[in-house]
């Protein structure tokens, strides 16, 4: 039962990673990051089913932090959009060396 759960969460996580890697749209990347967080949350839940409730506590924490992160992240994206009229990361390379 645990193995299947972990396989599912791993698959979700990898989808998130691949999404981050191949997409250029900041919103989509952002959503993929959220997907990765969700995959991790699911892992915690799966573990707590077998090893006790500590995982549940972590999930609450992660959801709190990810909510805050979503707020900040979306604010940054909106701010970038207002400046550049685009959220395509290809064009956003101000930190170029």
């Amino acid at each position, binding site marked *: 039962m645990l193995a299947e759960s972990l396989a599912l969460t791993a698959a979700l996580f990898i989808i998130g990673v691949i999404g*981050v*890697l191949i997409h250029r749209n900041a919103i989509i990347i952002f959503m993929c990051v959220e997907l990765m967080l969700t995959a991790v949350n699911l892992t915690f839940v799966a573990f707590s089913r077998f090893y006790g409730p500590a995982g549940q506590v972590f999930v609450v924490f992660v959801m709190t932090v990810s909510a805050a992160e979503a707020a900040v992240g979306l604010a940054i994206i909106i701010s970038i959009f207002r400046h550049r009229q685009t959220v395509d*990361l*290809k064009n*956003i*390379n*101000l*930190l*170029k*060396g």
Partner: protein
Amino acid sequence: MLLQSAVSAASQLHPLSGTIAEWVWLLPILPLAGFVINGLLSLAGAHFGPSDPNTPAHDDAGHPHADRVVFVQGDPQITHVEADAEDDHHGVKRHRWAGAVSVVGPGVLILSFLLALGIWQAMVAANPTTPFLQTYFSWMPVGDLQINTAFQLDQLSMVMILVITGVGALIHVFSIGYMRDDPGYPRFFSYLNLFVFFMLVLVLGANYPVLFVGWEGVGLCSYLLIGFWFNDKANADAGKKAFIVNRVGDFGLLVAMFMLFANIGVLDFVGVSAKAVDLGAGSALVTTICLFMFLGCTGKSAQIPLYIWLPDAMAGPTPVSALIHAATMVTAGVYLIARSSFLFSLSPVASLTVAVVGAVTAIFAATIGLKQWDIKKVLAYSTISQLGYMFIGVGVGAYVSGMFHLVTHAFFKALLFLGSGSVIHAMHAAYHRTHSAEDAQDMRNMGGLKRYLPVTCVLMWIATLAISGIPPFSGFFSKDEILGSVFARAQGSTLASASWLGVPGSTLLYIVYGIGLAAAFLTAVYMTRMMLYTFHGPTRTGTEEEQALHEAPWIMTGPLVILAILTIAGGWLNLPEVLTDLVPLGPREVLAHWLDPVVGGSTTRIIAGAPAVPTSTEEALIATAVVIAVVGILFAILRLKPANLPRARDAVPEHGFEGVVAHKYYVDEGIDRVIVEPTYKVSRTFFWRIVDNGLIDGLLVNGSAALARAFGWMGSRLQTGNVGIYAWVLVVGVLAMLGALTLR
């Protein structure tokens, strides 16, 4: 306060401990204090002077020097005439602190001399047979190398101390008058004081490294004082030349010290003299050490091949020439050999080398002295020649004779130099009067000065007779003793039985004796020539200029008189036994008995039971020397016609051999061609363009900068600013780490 602990060779107390000799450290400290005070005053009162690049242009446009304060009181004649007479070519504003400096500068020397007299008295009373050692602190305690800052007081250093402080004090007093209007007055005295400090360290040092400190220090002061008027490039160059040539010699002394330490492990005089025999008498090792040490002596004491700096050193003020380049510093080499007699007496070959080099230098410099026109250059070559005599003396193991000639030479050569300073002083006044650009040191511009400088003339004649070897002046006794020793050692001594480059030592010593006699003849000739052209015949200075010629003030002639008395009486320091009938006054061989504890053993080792020269022969030798000196003087008087001498600006250059001699055998030109120019060439093409520009600047300095820039460029390529790439790198990195952890 210095930590004092008397370390005696034996466990019992030294006879000098507890006496005034405990204050020996104060001898060099006094001049050092003078240096500090005068140096600070020089800085405190700094205004327009040679050290200021913004000095107003030469003041010879004829402004009346009304702003000058006359320091020497009670001598109104100085006020107008002398004020213009200075030997400086620069600004003429008198230094604010000149009064204080005139007290401190010579004062510390006089105090030092009085202290030296006290110590000498204590030494006469105690009559120690071993050196009095004072260890102050440990200087270089490195493993086996234990070097202390220690002073050694014995009869040899006592003689040197008395000469340095005594003659030095007189020259300091003379300088008050001579340098009176120089803007660098306090600087001059601080350098002179520093010089005396280092010279005293040199002769007081109880080991070679301490001696070397003084040795280098006097070289430094010599450089500073030769280039004292450094606004003139020629003077600055002369200072550099002296410094660089001396470095060559110092290298030799350093190598000798290294070899001593490597082979016997000690460097203090007591230790080396005890262990010197371990090096093996006559061995190649001890000969090499002695020859390297002698290389140092040729540099400092201006012998062939390193004599070239001394004539140029005349660029310094005349008191400097008297103090450093005649009376004291240049005798350091003679002192070093006498001090190291325990080494040189072990090596007949090295001793013969010293004697031969001394003899060749004596005659070589004497011939050059025949054709010089600059009065100070004549004296410079005369100094080189006389130093050659001293080296003949210490070379043949007659250490007492060498030291004796050192002392008498200090008297009469200081007198000659200061006398020439008095002449130059007057000549400057004369040419300053008309703002003439004539050379005030050229004898062709002098002549007939006895009418204007009668005192100087008489005093310099005394010194001339002394240096020529006319009895009863001091030079006669000392020079004669050297020649007599050479003759005596040509039979039966260790030197006579040794061979030098295949020549038997005996033959060689007879040749040295012959050269010595020839040099004595030439000495008489060129010194008489100098006196004739300077003081006799018609005055060639110029009608209007003549009116400004005058005798120097008492502060300058006073030291001259004292030196003249010493020049006359100096011979009594060491009257020879043989002249008992002729000179019935005074005790015999005082200096020989005095120095016996220091150099007696070495002298005996060299003589090695050689038969004493019969009294009749010895008297004949002395008679020969006197006759030769008299003939030389008469030859010069009869041959030279001061009346026919043209002035310097009308002079035609000499031709043929005379021209070669006048150009000092083209030695300087030869050295330029063989050493200096190739050095320049190699430096310009190879060291500058290839090594410095190419290797150091190009490869190392700019190369490391380029390398850093290249790494920076590569690093900056990674920073694309594109978040996607960063994410890729992050993921690849995480995967790599996970993979590494998994596969571990």
